[in-house]
């Protein structure tokens, strides 16, 4: 049998303007095909929607009550004016939720048998606050605690007021509830890191905390980005629940307009505003994760 071996230079051959390889040609074809499929299926779906929906008997009503152009133009700037309240509430809650959530996740991961009570506490906490509907937590904390008749003032970032303010207990309720969800997300991430990573870190003399901070959590956090985004997106919308406590925000505003006009267009407007807010977020996070994976990862199986 024959065995051949060529050597055309040890370094990389310079290739300023070369003929495409078979693979490159194929990749181009595939991309073109993909574009074609995408375009044609999009067109088909759009056509179907555009042709069928207006033929349904109720379309004029739906158009008037859900996709009312005049209302849209009027409500969009109106509702936008209330967005800042949601954003402020959201931004107030997020850091507390993340910190407390990570802390709870780490408590559940404690292995020292003497610290079992901490672990049990964290488990009980997550069970409790995931078990109770968020809305009930908001009711119980947001109406129950102020009803105790506390006196005084509070100041928290951009919010301030009396001790029974909805701007205090509302965020507290959300933090209590969402930290339980976020804790479980982080726990799944932490438990997903192979034990050998801990062994590697601890063998180098890193303490338990350093191991968490530099080795386990960074890997865990990256893995749980999608479910964490789930919770952040839910939170962004659940701040609207604080309207129960009297916070007047975007969603409440939409509701008021709807109840006044019997027209659902403000809800569509609210949905559009939320989408304008969230889609760039999710795209950015996705892009960032994909880039990190590409940079640090090995080869992908074809």
């Amino acid at each position, binding site marked *: *049998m*024959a*065995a*051949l*071996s*060529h*050597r*055309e*230079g*040890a370094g*990389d*051959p310079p290739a300023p303007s070369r003929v495409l*390889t*078979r*693979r490159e040609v*194929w*990749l181009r074809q*595939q991309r073109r095909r993909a574009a074609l499929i995408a375009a044609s299926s999009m067109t088909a779906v759009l056509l179907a929607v555009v042709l069928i929906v207006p033929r349904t008997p109720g379309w004029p009503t739906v158009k008037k009550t859900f996709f009312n152009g005049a209302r849209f133009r009027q409500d969009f700037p109106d509702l936008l004016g209330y967005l800042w309240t949601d954003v402020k509430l959201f931004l107030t809650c997020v850091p507390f939720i993340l910190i407390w959530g990570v802390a709870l996740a780490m408590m559940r991961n404690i292995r020292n048998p003497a610290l079992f009570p901490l672990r049990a506490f964290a488990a009980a906490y997550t069970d409790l606050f995931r078990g109770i509907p968020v809305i009930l937590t908001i009711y119980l904390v947001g109406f129950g605690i102020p009803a105790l008749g506390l006196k005084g003032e509070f100041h928290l970032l951009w919010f301030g007021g009396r001790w029974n303010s909805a701007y205090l207990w509302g965020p507290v309720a959300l933090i209590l509830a969402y930290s339980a969800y976020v804790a479980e997300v982080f726990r799944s991430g932490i438990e997903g890191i192979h*034990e050998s990573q801990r062994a590697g870190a601890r063998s180098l003399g890193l303490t338990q905390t350093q191991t968490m901070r530099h080795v386990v959590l960074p890997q865990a956090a990256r893995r749980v980005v999608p479910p964490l985004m789930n919770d952040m997106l839910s939170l962004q919308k659940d701040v609207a629940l604080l309207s129960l406590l009297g916070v007047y925000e975007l969603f409440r505003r939409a509701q008021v307009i709807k109840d006044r006009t019997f027209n659902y267009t403000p809800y569509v407007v609210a949905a559009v505003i939320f989408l304008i807010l969230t889609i760039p977020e999710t795209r950015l996070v996705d892009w960032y994760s994909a880039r990190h994976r*590409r940079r640090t990862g090995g*080869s992908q*199986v*074809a």
Partner: protein
Amino acid sequence: MNGATPKVEIRNLRKSFGTKAHRRTVLHDICLDIGEHEVVCLIGASGSGKSTMLRCINMLEPVDDGEIWLHGTGGAVDLAEPGLDPDPIRRRIGMVFQSYNLFPHMSVLRNITLAPMKVLGRSAGDAKATAMHLLQRLGLADKADAYPDQLSGGQQQRVAIVRALAMQPELMLLDEITAALDPVLVGEVLNVVREMRNDGMTMVLATHEMGFAREIADLVCFLQDGVILESAPPAQLFTEPQHAETRDFLARVIASGRL
């Protein structure tokens, strides 16, 4: 030695890693014929591209350019052809990975019997019997119900070998399959490889154990920086290397007492 008909013909294989901006070619225009029922050993420094070459043959890495013809029942296919369905090919090719790649959520036995049952349609009883026989042979019968994370390094490696063997492929790609094994087991694996060859299997091995290569190979290829510098039967390559670089490598191997 034998094998006038080639099993695998590699022609001008090129493979690179990285993004457009930072591209590093790790296999340069590799050409190699692997005869039917032959054992070909790839030797060379760490990072010279041995594993990458095996992965290319198994279609696990898309190649940049070149051809890899696999001959067998039903004619020849070019594994480097983009868009080729890999599944029917891969069931004809077995592979043992340098890092084992066992499935941690399955017991040893299930790791081994999964593919024979799902891919070849073996019955559970059949698959288990084959698996237990092979495990027995490599001294692992008592670990059939253990999980990969509960095994020692050498035990994991043996499970990986058994998993590939259980598929009874035409072509076997073996990446450093003796690295974690004790010398006694290395001898046993050597025997298994010999038997497989006699049963008609073709094999490509990447190995750092020159002794192993010398004993078993029909052809030894010396890789350096992604280039096959020299390939010859072991008797020739180890005693009268043609290339200055090969001589140099072997000299340093001998100097460090490893040949």
